[in-house]
């Protein structure tokens, strides 16, 4: 059972990507996919939205899975393993979660379940790079998220001109030269195939 997180700051398009990736990974019944959605607002709106798509979804509310409710997350992953035996678990942490801490929390479930940890895919919103990296605001948090990424998906590329994509790519590369960068549009489908391929072929 591979656990892959779709991280990134609030509003960057994680839920939409989760829905598309889960359908593509599931294919025509080739793989079992489960989703874990975490929100700090205690109203799991995203989980309810995804649930309507018919996917197997576990909501974790009441805190962030990278810190406050890490043990609950590990238990949820174990329960999915025990009850559903999915091939892939896609995890949408809160928009403020730190990806390496989510990986640590996922590994806690490895005490009782046979798991591997997939790539940390971090979305970076191409429509607001300056806002996200403003150090007086969220820069420290977003910088940490980008630095922790195995793959950075520059999201909403359909909504900006090529110059903006280049600007986001340059900022991301400056922070994390090792991460693969994928241009993503959940609206047009750009980048989805690449991400699916990376998840399926990922080696820890």
């Amino acid at each position, binding site marked *: 059972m591979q656990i892959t997180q779709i991280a990134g700051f*609030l509003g960057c398009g994680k839920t939409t990507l989760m829905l598309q990736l889960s359908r593509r990974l599931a294919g025509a019944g080739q793989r079992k996919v489960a989703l874990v959605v975490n929100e*700090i*607002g205690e109203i*799991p709106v995203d989980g309810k939205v995804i649930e309507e798509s018919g996917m197997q979804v576990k909501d974790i509310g009441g805190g*962030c899975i990278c810190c*406050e409710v890490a*043990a609950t997350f590990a238990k949820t992953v174990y329960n999915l393993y025990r009850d559903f035996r999915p091939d892939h678990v896609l995890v949408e942490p809160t928009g*403020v979660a730190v990806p390496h801490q989510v990986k640590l929390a996922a590994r806690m479930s490895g005490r009782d379940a046979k798991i591997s940890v997939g790539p940390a895919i971090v979305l970076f919103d191409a429509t607001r790079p300056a806002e996200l990296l403003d150090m007086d605001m*969220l820069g420290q948090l977003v910088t940490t998220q980008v630095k922790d990424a195995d793959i950075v998906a520059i999201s909403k590329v359909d909504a900006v001109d090529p110059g903006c994509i280049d600007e986001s790519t340059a900022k991301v590369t400056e922070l994390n030269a090792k991460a693969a960068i994928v241009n993503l549009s959940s609206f047009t489908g750009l980048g989805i195939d690449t991400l699916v391929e990376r998840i399926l072929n990922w080696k820890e």
Partner: protein
Amino acid sequence: MTDDSAPVSGCYTEHGVSGYGVAAKLSRNEPMPEAFVKAMAEAMMMAIASRCIDLGAKCIGHIKSHLRTEAGTIKADTIGVSHGSFSSGAISHPVKDLYLAINSIVQGIPEDAVKAATLDGMHEVAEQRGLSVVKEKEHTYFDEFDFTASKQDFIKKLAEQFEQDKRG
């Protein structure tokens, strides 16, 4: 597997991020068509975001909403006033009742301020458009909701959850 972790502070608090969630039932005597509901939901998201900024928020993480009706679901959200608000979904016929959930995550103001902005924005936009907030619960959702149930059944269940809360 045991749940052995002690409560800890959220990683996000050091970045000044606060969240608030509320569920409500909104009603209007005159049935509301899809366009009306979408416009109202979008206006609500913008009103909440504007209030957060007025109260000192530096950045809107997201304001998201989910409206269930007997005729379908509408979702609306914004990531900031300058970004506009968007809605999706469909309702098949005009409705009198809406079951609404809002989740506001904002940076730069405390939870009390996010709460005030969320509730004020919701009430103001609802009332401007002739809706009354019949019932309201914070930090909760319609957890027992069964998405496989018929539209009539799920509305009944949502209503029951508000009643249980009133009794509790």
